[in-house]
């Protein structure tokens, strides 16, 4: 990445780099956090980062397909959030905990 005075407009690779940074932060949150809701939010952050990549490539290729994919990702994320939060509610009802380390029935 060239250093120096800020250009008038940034190249698309900067958008992709931002997307990579946000994705890495999402992975970090997914691995480090212990609250099941925050882990879920980290997944949403990763989905958003991928969406930014889609829209950037759509700009580079001057085609609308990236936007369509991004739209589908949003729809799937909405469905996933509804089901995932219902699962979290059920887990909390049965276990009275949100710590992912304490929900380990399937371990071993």
């Amino acid at each position, binding site marked *: 990445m060239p250093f120096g005075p800020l250009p008038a407009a940034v190249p698309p690779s900067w958008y*992709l780099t931002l997307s990579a940074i946000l994705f890495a932060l999402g992975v970090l949150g997914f691995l480090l956090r212990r609250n099941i809701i925050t882990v879920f939010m980290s997944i949403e952050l990763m989905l*958003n980062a991928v969406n930014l990549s889609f829209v950037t490539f759509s700009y580079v290729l001057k085609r609308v*397909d990236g*936007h369509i994919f991004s739209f589908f990702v949003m729809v799937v994320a909405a469905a996933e*959030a509804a089901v995932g939060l219902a699962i979290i*509610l059920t887990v909390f009802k049965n276990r009275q905990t949100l710590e992912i380390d304490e929900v380990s029935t399937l371990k071993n």
Partner: protein
Amino acid sequence: MDAILFMIFAAIAVICGINLVVQTHPISSALSLVGVMGALAALYLLLGGEFIAAAQLVVYAGAIMVLFVFVIMLLNAGAEKRPEIKPLGKYLGAPLLLVFLGMMAYWVERLMPPSSPVVFGAFQGGTAAEIGRSLFTVYLLPFEVTSVLILIAIIGAIVLARKEVD
């Protein structure tokens, strides 16, 4: 001007993203995620995605995050205990992450073909009309399958979250 706007919103997104990871209380993380999504909506607008920017604000920052905040309130989720991190991870983690990000940025910069910088208004194909035309011609089958997916999600959420009546 475009570069300044990109820098502002990229900084907001990264700071809110870091805040999401380091905050211990879920509600702080949720508000940080709203910040990330708002900043990303502005960046979509810079890239010419009017419809996606609006959908990002309405669907993500509106609907999904309200769902998250609602569940956090419902379950009365408190601050989580800090997991103890091994000293190896504590002192090597952040530098290794920075090296990884640097390498990734370098390769993205290297591998991208030289392309013209992002100028607001250079791509006009992201309007609702264009997306609708594409969605109902080329992507008609995925669109219809998505409606089935949503139906399954609705039924699944109801079945999972209902009170058991014996």
